[in-house]
């Protein structure tokens, strides 16, 4: 085996094996360097974890999901309106939609949440957003989400070939009818992956809800974990909360993959 001249195939194999080894070595080095005893005392205390249940699921996880869905539905509705306004032939509509999108994409979600939570009651002292915290969260997170989703939806609508609208109009459909029956269904299929990303981002943004002052019944995962951390003086709740977030987000990714496969078949 001395000084064997490497064939191209052997050389490629060698490079690949070296790649695996470097990767494994890097991971092993990090794992070996960590102090697992202290780490597990801090982050994996089963008694602390157990004390969080069932409330972690029945209240915190549930509220996280509810906040996400409410904000998503609100954001999608407003976002669709904005997308259509951006594509409208009426100039002021386009101006408004563009200004809205630029503004709310540029502001931190936390800031918008604050302004909705504390600014709206100041501006309209006689009224309040219906639904209490749920309503404020819906609007506060939804306004930001709408800006992102408007751009996604606009791109989706524009990705539907022009011929689709022409064919529909040629069959005697009005413009709105053609949009509803022909263009939007295809646009939504196109934007399912980015919209799901938006849900995943929203799921994580619900961790900002605490600024509105949540109670034991309206608490969500991050605030719940933080509170437990404070009372038990141990960060295990953060790990539990993290895992519960993944319980929401991982199935979503699976769902997207399934939908993409289905859309691919029909294309």
């Amino acid at each position, binding site marked *: 085996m001395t000084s064997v001249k490497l064939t191209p195939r052997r050389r490629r194999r060698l490079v690949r094996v070296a790649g695996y080894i470097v990767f494994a070595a890097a991971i092993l080095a990090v794992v070996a360097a960590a102090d697992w005893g202290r780490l597990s005392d801090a982050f994996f205390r089963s008694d602390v974890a157990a004390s969080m249940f069932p409330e972690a699921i029945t209240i915190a996880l549930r509220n996280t999901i509810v906040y996400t869905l409410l904000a998503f539905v609100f954001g999608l509705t407003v976002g669709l309106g904005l997308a259509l306004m951006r594509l409208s032939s009426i100039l002021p509509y386009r101006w408004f939609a563009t200004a809205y999108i630029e503004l709310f994409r540029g502001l931190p979600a936390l800031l918008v949440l604050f302004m909705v939570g504390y600014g709206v009651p100041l501006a309209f002292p006689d009224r309040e957003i219906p639904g209490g915290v749920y309503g404020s969260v819906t609007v506060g997170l939804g306004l930001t989400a709408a800006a992102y989703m408007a751009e996604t939806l606009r791109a989706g609508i524009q990705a539907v070939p022009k011929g689709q609208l022409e064919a*529909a109009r*040629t069959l*005697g459909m009005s413009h709105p*009818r053609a949009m509803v*029956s*022909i263009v939007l269904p295809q646009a939504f299929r196109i934007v399912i992956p980015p919209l799901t990303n938006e849900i995943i981002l929203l799921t994580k943004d619900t961790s900002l809800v605490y600024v509105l002052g949540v109670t034991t019944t309206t608490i969500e995962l991050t605030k719940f974990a933080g509170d437990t951390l404070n009372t038990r003086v141990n960060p295990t709740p953060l790990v539990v909360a993290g895992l519960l977030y993944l319980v929401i987000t991982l199935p979503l990714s699976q769902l997207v993959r399934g939908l993409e496969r289905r859309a691919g078949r*029909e294309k």
Partner: protein
Amino acid sequence: MTGMSTIEIGALHKSFGRLEVLRGIDLTVEAGEVVCVIGPSGSGKSTLLRCVNLLEEPSAGSIRVAGVEVTDPDCDIDAVRRGVGMVFQQFNLFGHLTVRENVTIAQRRVLKRGRAEANRIAQENLDRVGLADKADSYPAQLSGGQQQRVAIARALAMDPQLMLFDEPTSALDPELVGEVLAVMRGLAAEGMTMLVVTHEMAFAREVASRVVFMDGGVIVEAGPPAQVFGSPREERTREFLHRVLEPTRVSETEIGAHLTE
């Protein structure tokens, strides 16, 4: 409706910005006629066709479809389009709907036909184009020729009094052209009024009642196919037909090439 031409186009102009695509078109299509429009790319054939159902807004001139002035701002264009079927080069089937749904959606949403009636009419028209067994397929599962036949069935299901064809076979693989032309020939034989933009000279020669040759945004020559193909009056028509019908006999000097030196 007697005495009223299906299409009457007068002094039609169309510009895209500074580019004048149609420069004064006069054309009449009578009920039951099959008029084939031929001509080089960029001659304005497709634009002319698309003006008839207002997919393009004419810059000037008048277009009457079944007596209705479509350029009138008060014209109910959706109502006019209901009576005018259109078939596109790119088929434009609705990708998210099955073949049956493609053929029923406008019947249901526009003509307000019930589900059972729409399905029955869809089935009849799919049968007409030889695709009765494909009703549950999605467009993507069909060949180009089959998709185009579905597109024809979709238009026919609206009971149009006029069919517009915009280069219906130009996007097809050569071996799939015949099946679409066969359907169109059948339609012509049934007496359908048709305005066809095409590069299929054999089809135009065989099926057309009249052939219109366009170039540079004007109608250069029009007449019965035997005359336009057999003894074209205009030099430009002769040159075009020579290049299209005998592509292997286009000489190098004609195109200014110097390959044999």
